[in-house]
C-alpha cells in the first residue's frame, strides 16, 4: 500500500534503511516492558479513585480494606504526608502567564477535582487482592458544583474548579505583531469564523505503569516506569521524597508507545516509589485501560473565534481573534499546548499582522498535556479552514490562495515575528513550501479532480478533495547528552538521556555513531532512558531526539574517532590521514595488515599503572561525552491531500486516498521516517473522524473503553502515499529535522476540507473535528432548512474578557 519515492535525486542521500536494533526482542516477546519485570516478592498496588468530578472528601475509612485477604497496606495522603516534603508535585514548566498555581497532589487531600483522581492506594500480594480491597475503602464524598465546559468556566458566575480559588482562568496570554487595526481597516475581504477542535487521548497500547524497589543496604531506590522522561520523574521523586540524586535511579524500560502523556510525572509514580521504601518490598502498579481513560492526561477541547483580512487577490493582510483552551483541573505540564496552537497558525504563510488572545480555563477534568502534535494540528486546522473559506468567497482555487501566501524558498531562513516559550526567535530554517504543495497537487491529480467529482456525482456518489499545508516546530533544545565509548572488550557503547518509546531511537543513535566509527550499527549497544547511564537529560517529546540527541551523538562519535586515530597514528607509526576505520579496527589504508582492533586501542588508551599513556595530551580512554547546545528549533513542512467519499444516507466518511509530501531535511533512515509519518497520519485520521473523549454535564467520562472511544483500525486506513523532499537544515551538523508528530498535523484539516468539498451540494460549512457520522448525517438531513448563516455546532464567540480581573492565586494560599 504505501509508496515512497525520492523526489530529489540530486540531493545527497546519506540515509540507509538500516534494520532496527530494537526488533529482535520485540518480535520474540523477550523484550521487557514495565509489567514484564517480575522481581521476587513484588507487591501489587491498586488506586482508589474519585467517582466525582468535584467533591469534598470528608472522611476516609480504610479499616475494612486493611483487613481484606492479601492486603499489606492501605495509604491515604495523611499516612504518606510525614514522609513527603510537599503534598503537591511541581511538574509544570514555568510561565509568567500563569494566574493560578494548581499543582497536582500526590494523592487527593480534602477535595477531589476530577473523576479518576487518586484518593488512596491499596498494596496487596496480588493485583486481584488489591483491586478487591480498593472497593472496600469507604470515602465520604460531598459533591460540589462542577465546571464541565471550558466555555462557561470563565463566566463571572461560574463555580470554581477548586473551592479555594476565586476563578478558573489558569492563564491568559497573547501573540501580537504587526498592526491588525490597519490590516482589517483597508481589507477587501474580512470575515470571522469560529471553530471547535477536540482531541482525545494518546492511547499508547501499553498503558502507564511503574515498579519500585528499595535496597536497604545501600539506601538506593530504583523506579522502572513507562515514561518518556525518566530524568524529569527522578527530579520530582528526589524532591518529594527528600532523597539526594545519587540514591535514586529512574529507568524507562521498553515503553509501549508514549505519544505525549507519558512525559508527565504522575501521582502513581511518586506513591509507588514511596511505598517501596515504606514496605521494603518491590511494589508494582500497572494501569488498566479504564484508568488510562480516567487519569492519563488528554488534549480535549479548544474553541477558536478568528478573523482574517485579505486583499482581493487573496493576499493575507492579517489575522486576529481568540483561543479558549480547556486546561483540566491541574497544571501537569504547562501552557505548551495552547502556546503551540497559537504559534503554529501563522507559520507556513506570510501574515503581516497577527493578534491572538489565548485564554486557558480550568475545568473539573483530568489535566490537559500534549498528545502527539501538541496543539499544532489545531493551529493548522484553523489556518487551513480559513484559507478554504477565503477561496470560496473570492472564487479562487483553494490551492491558488495558498500559493499566493506561502513562505517562499528565497525567504529562507525566514525570521517570523514570533518567539518560542523560552523567548528564542522563530526562524524557519529551510524548505520550499510552494514546491512541496505543487508536488502534492501533481501526485493527487488536483487539477482533474472536478471531472472525477462530476462523474461520481452523476452516479450518486459524493466525493471531495482537500488540501492542507503545515509547518512543524521540531527539535526542542537546549541539549541531550550522549556518551560514546569504545570499551576494552572492543564493543562500542552509546548512552543518552534520549528516551525511546517506539521511535527507533537506539537505531537512530547507532546509525549516527556508525557513520563515524564505521561498521554495522547492530554491533553498537545503545542505552537510553536510564538516569544512571546519563545524569542529565530531557527525554522524548516534541520530535526532538534525532535533532538534539543526534547532534550530540554525531559530535561524540567524531571526538572518539579523532582519539582513536591519534592513538593509532602513534602506535602504527602512520599519518592520521592514511588511516581508516571499519567498526572493529583502525588500519592503514594501503596496508590493511597494519591494524589495531578497537579492543587493542581501548586497552592502550586506558594505560598501565606506572607507565606513561601512549599519547600524552589525549587523556585516558576512548570515550567522549557531548551535549551540543541547540536553542533554535528546526521546522519540518509538508502538504497533504485527502480524497474522501461521504455516504449521504449514513454520514459515514471513507478516506479514499491520502498523500503527504513531506520535508524533514536529511532522512537518516527513510524506512523509519515513513513509519513515523504513517503512524501520525493514522492518528490524524482518528482525530478527523473517530476519536471523541466524551464527558457528560457532570464532567463524568462517558467513553471509557475502546468500544466507545474508537481508534483507527486497519480497515479504516486508506491507501497512503508518501513523497519526500530533503531540505537539509542549516541549523545542525546532520541537516536533520524531527518527524515524530508531523503526520498528525495536516490530516484533520485535509480530511475535513475534503468532506466539505464532497458536501458542497448541501452547502456544508465544517468548522469542527472530529466529524462523526452523527454530526454529518444531521447536517445533511437539515441542509435544505438551514439558513446560510446558521451557526455551526461548537460555535463560540469570544466574550469581552478583562484579563486583569483574574488574580494570581495558589492552592497553597500563597
Amino acid at each position, binding site marked *: 500500500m504505501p509508496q515512497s519515492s525520492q523526489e530529489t535525486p540530486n540531493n545527497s542521500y546519506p540515509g540507509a534503511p538500516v534494520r532496527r536494533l530494537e526488533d529482535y526482542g520485540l518480535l520474540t516477546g523477550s523484550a*521487557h516492558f514495565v509489567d514484564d519485570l517480575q522481581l521476587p516478592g513484588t507487591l501489587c498496588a491498586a488506586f482508589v479513585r474519585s467517582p466525582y468530578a468535584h467533591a469534598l472528601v470528608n472522611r476516609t475509612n480504610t479499616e475494612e480494606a486493611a483487613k481484606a485477604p492479601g492486603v499489606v497496606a492501605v495509604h491515604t495522603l495523611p499516612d504518606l504526608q510525614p514522609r513527603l516534603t510537599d503534598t503537591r508535585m511541581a511538574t509544570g514548566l514555568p510561565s509568567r502567564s500563569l494566574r493560578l498555581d494548581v499543582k497536582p497532589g500526590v494523592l487527593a487531600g480534602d477535595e477531589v477535582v476530577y473523576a479518576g483522581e487518586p484518593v488512596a492506594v491499596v498494596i496487596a500480594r496480588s493485583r486481584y487482592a488489591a483491586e478487591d480491597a480498593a472497593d472496600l475503602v469507604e470515602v465520604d464524598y460531598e459533591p460540589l458544583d462542577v465546571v464541565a465546559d471550558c466555555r462557561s468556566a470563565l463566566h463571572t458566575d461560574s463555580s470554581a474548579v477548586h473551592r479555594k480559588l476565586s476563578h478558573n482562568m489558569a492563564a491568559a496570554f497573547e501573540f501580537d505583531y504587526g498592526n491588525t487595526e490597519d490590516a482589517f481597516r483597508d481589507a477587501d475581504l474580512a470575515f470571522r469564523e469560529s471553530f471547535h477542535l477536540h482531541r482525545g487521548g494518546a492511547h*499508547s497500547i501499553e498503558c502507564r505503569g511503574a515498579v519500585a524497589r528499595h535496597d536497604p543496604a545501600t539506601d538506593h531506590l530504583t523506579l522502572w516506569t513507562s515514561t518518556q522522561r525518566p530524568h524529569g520523574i527522578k527530579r520530582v521523586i528526589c524532591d518529594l521524597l527528600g532523597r539526594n540524586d545519587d540514591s535514586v535511579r529512574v529507568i524507562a524500560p521498553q515503553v*509501549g508507545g508514549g505519544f505525549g502523556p507519558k512525559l508527565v510525572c504522575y501521582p502513581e509514580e511518586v506513591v509507588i516509589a514511596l511505598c517501596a521504601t515504606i514496605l521494603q518490598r518491590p511494589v508494582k502498579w500497572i494501569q488498566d485501560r479504564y484508568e488510562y481513560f480516567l487519569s492519563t492526561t488528554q488534549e480535549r477541547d479548544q474553541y477558536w473565534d478568528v478573523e482574517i483580512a485579505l486583499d482581493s487577490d487573496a493576499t493575507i493582510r492579517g489575522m486576529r481573534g481568540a483561543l479558549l483552551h480547556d486546561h483540566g483541573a491541574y497544571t501537569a505540564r504547562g501552557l505548551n499546548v495552547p502556546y503551540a496552537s497559537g504559534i503554529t497558525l501563522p507559520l507556513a504563510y506570510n501574515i503581516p499582522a497577527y493578534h491572538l488572545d489565548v485564554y486557558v480555563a480550568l475545568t473539573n477534568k483530568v489535566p490537559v498535556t500534549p498528545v502527539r502534535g501538541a496543539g499544532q494540528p489545531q493551529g493548522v486546522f484553523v489556518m487551513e479552514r480559513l484559507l478554504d473559506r477565503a477561496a470560496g468567497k473570492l472564487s479562487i482555487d483553494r490551492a491558488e490562495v495558498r500559493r499566493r501566501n506561502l513562505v517562499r524558498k528565497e525567504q529562507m531562513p525566514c525570521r517570523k515575528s514570533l518567539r518560542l516559550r523560552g523567548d528564542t526567535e522563530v526562524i524557519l530554517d529551510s524548505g520550499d513550501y510552494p514546491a512541496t504543495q505543487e508536488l502534492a497537487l501533481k501526485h493527487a491529480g488536483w487539477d482533474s479532480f472536478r471531472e472525477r467529482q462530476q462523474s461520481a456525482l452523476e452516479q450518486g456518489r459524493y466525493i471531495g478533495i482537500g488540501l492542507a499545508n503545515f509547518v512543524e516546530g521540531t527539535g526542542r533544545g537546549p541539549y541531550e547528552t550522549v556518551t560514546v565509548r569504545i570499551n576494552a572488550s572492543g564493543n562500542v557503547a552509546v548512552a543518552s538521556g534520549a528516551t525511546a518509546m517506539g521511535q527507533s531511537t537506539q537505531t537512530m543513535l547507532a546509525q549516527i555513531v556508525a557513520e563515524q566509527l564505521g561498521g554495522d550499527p547492530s554491533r553498537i549497544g545503545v542505552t537510553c532512558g536510564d538516569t544512571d547511564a546519563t545524569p542529565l537529560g530531557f527525554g522524548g517529546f516534541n520530535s526532538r531526539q534525532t535533532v538534539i540527541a543526534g547532534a550530540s551523538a554525531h559530535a561524540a562519535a567524531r571526538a572518539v574517532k579523532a582519539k582513536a586515530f591519534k592513538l593509532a597514528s602513534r602506535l602504527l607509526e602512520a599519518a592520521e590521514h592514511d588511516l581508516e576505520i571499519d567498526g572493529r579496527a583502525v588500519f592503514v589504508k594501503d596496508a590493511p595488515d597494519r591494524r589495531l582492533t578497537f579492543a587493542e586501542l581501548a586497552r592502550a588508551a586506558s594505560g598501565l599503572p606506572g607507565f606513561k599513556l601512549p599519547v600524552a595530551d589525549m587523556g585516558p580512554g576512548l570515550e567522549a561525552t557531548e551535549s551540543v547546545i541547540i536553542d533554535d528549533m528546526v521546522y519540518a513542512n509538508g502538504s497533504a491531500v485527502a480524497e474522501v467519499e461521504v455516504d449521504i444516507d449514513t454520514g459515514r466518511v471513507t478516506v479514499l486516498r491520502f498523500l503527504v509530501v513531506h520535508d524533514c531535511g536529511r532522512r537518516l533512515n527513510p524506512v523509519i521516517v515513513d513509519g513515523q509519518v504513517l503512524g501520525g*497520519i493514522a492518528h490524524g485520521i482518528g482525530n478527523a473522524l473517530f476519536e471523541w473523549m466524551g464527558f457528560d454535564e457532570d464532567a463524568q467520562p462517558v467513553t471509557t473503553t475502546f468500544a466507545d472511544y474508537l481508534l483507527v483500525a486497519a480497515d479504516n486506513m486508506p491507501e497512503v502515499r508518501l513523497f519526500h523532499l530533503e531540505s537539509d537544515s542549516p541549523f545542525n551538523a546532520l541537516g536533520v529535522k524531527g518527524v515524530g508528530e508531523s503526520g498528525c498535523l495536516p490530516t484533520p484539516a485535509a480530511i475535513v476540507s475534503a468532506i466539505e468539498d464532497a458536501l458542497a451540494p448541501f452547502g456544508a460549512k465544517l468548522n469542527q473535528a472530529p466529524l462523526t457520522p452523527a454530526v454529518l448525517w444531521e447536517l445533511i438531513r437539515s441542509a435544505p432548512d438551514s439558513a446560510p448563516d446558521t451557526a455551526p455546532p461548537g460555535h463560540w464567540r469570544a466574550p469581552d474578557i478583562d484579563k486583569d480581573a483574574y488574580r494570581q492565586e495558589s492552592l497553597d494560599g500563597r
Partner: protein
Amino acid sequence: MSDKIPFTLNVNSREYQVSVEARQTLADVIREECGLTGTRVGCEHGVCGSCTIIVDGAPVRACLMFAVQAEGKEVRTIEGMADGEELHSVQRAFSDNHGLQCGFCTPGFIMLITAALEQNPAPTDEEIREMLSANLCRCTGYQNIFNAVKQYVGESTETTGAHKND
C-alpha cells in the same frame, strides 16, 4: 475467592503445573505463573487484541478467557514462534517491512496473523485488512503490517503452491 484449582496448562508444547483461582485470566496466568511475558495486555476488555494467543488453532484474546478454561487445550504464545535464534517467517516479515515500532502490540498481531493464515493461507487484500482490523496498533498506521502479511502470504504460497486469489 481464593480457592485455588490445580491443573496442567499446555503452552508451546510444554506442560506447566499451575494452581490458580477460577477468576484468573489466561493472560495473567501465562504471564505470571508460566513466566511467559510476551503476551501483553493492552485493554483488558477484549478490544485491542494485544494479548492474542492461539488456543487449539484459533486466535483468542487471553484477557477474555479464564485460565481454567484452557485445561486440556493446546496454547501457543509468541515465545513458541522462533526456532532458537531463527525467527518465524511472520516475525521476519514484520522486521523486513518495519511492521513494528514500540512493539507492544506486535506479539498479538503475530499470533493473530499466524492463526488466521493457518485457516486461510491465501487471503485477498480485503480479507487481510479485515483480519488485521481485529487488533489495534497506535504506532504504525497498519500499512507496514499489511505489507508484512503480504510478504508472508507470498512466501508461504510460493512454498506450498497454494493459489493466490487476487
